[in-house]
């Protein structure tokens, strides 16, 4: 599946500003993150700490992904 990834916060330091066009076998948000951790070992520090966003919604683990969707990668937040 083709997806467009948009990194945020400290993930920009690892993945660049984006957007990243990727081709991956993932069909759910959880599968996407598992694939990302395989492809980018530098993300190890964020294992279990990244949420996925689509539009103005956060995705659940089993949320299905669609072709050419723009997925936001949301690391731990530090506003205030």
């Amino acid at each position: 599946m083709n997806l467009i990834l948009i990194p945020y916060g400290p993930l920009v330091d690892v993945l660049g500003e984006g957007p990243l066009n990727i081709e991956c076998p993932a069909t759910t948000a959880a599968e996407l993150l598992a694939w990302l951790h395989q492809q980018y070992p530098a993300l190890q520090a964020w294992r279990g700490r990244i949420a996925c966003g689509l539009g103005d919604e956060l995705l659940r683990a089993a949320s299905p992904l669609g072709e050419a969707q723009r997925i936001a990668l949301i690391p731990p937040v530090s506003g205030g």
Partner: protein
Amino acid sequence: MKHLCNGPIALEALLACDDPACGAALLFTGCVREHNEGRAVSGMLYTAHERLADKALADICSEALQQFEIRSCRIIHRLGELRLGDISVAIAVQSAHRPAAYEASRWAIEAIKQRVPIWKKEHYIDGASRHLDGHTLDAAL
């Protein structure tokens, strides 16, 4: 975006009140501090997922109104490059009596730190910069 801005926060507008039932108007502001974890800070960059952040801040205002005996809750978070002393976030709460305003304001700033997709990157006087570690969202996988 209703709850985000890229310049100085308009505090007077945030605190304006035409509700005669309010006997308390409380303003909290968070500012860029000159030191953190033993390092001298020269400034701060705030970035956000703007759609999600604006929605999360709106949710926090709505939840504060439901959870506390307050009449209004307004929150504005600033984005972009800020200097020392600049206000990064402002929370204005109005209520009939002061205890509820203090409780709601305290709750709101903690909720912002835990739930809103905003990130701070500190700049130091030695020229280095780094993103601060933060709170993992409940939706993290």
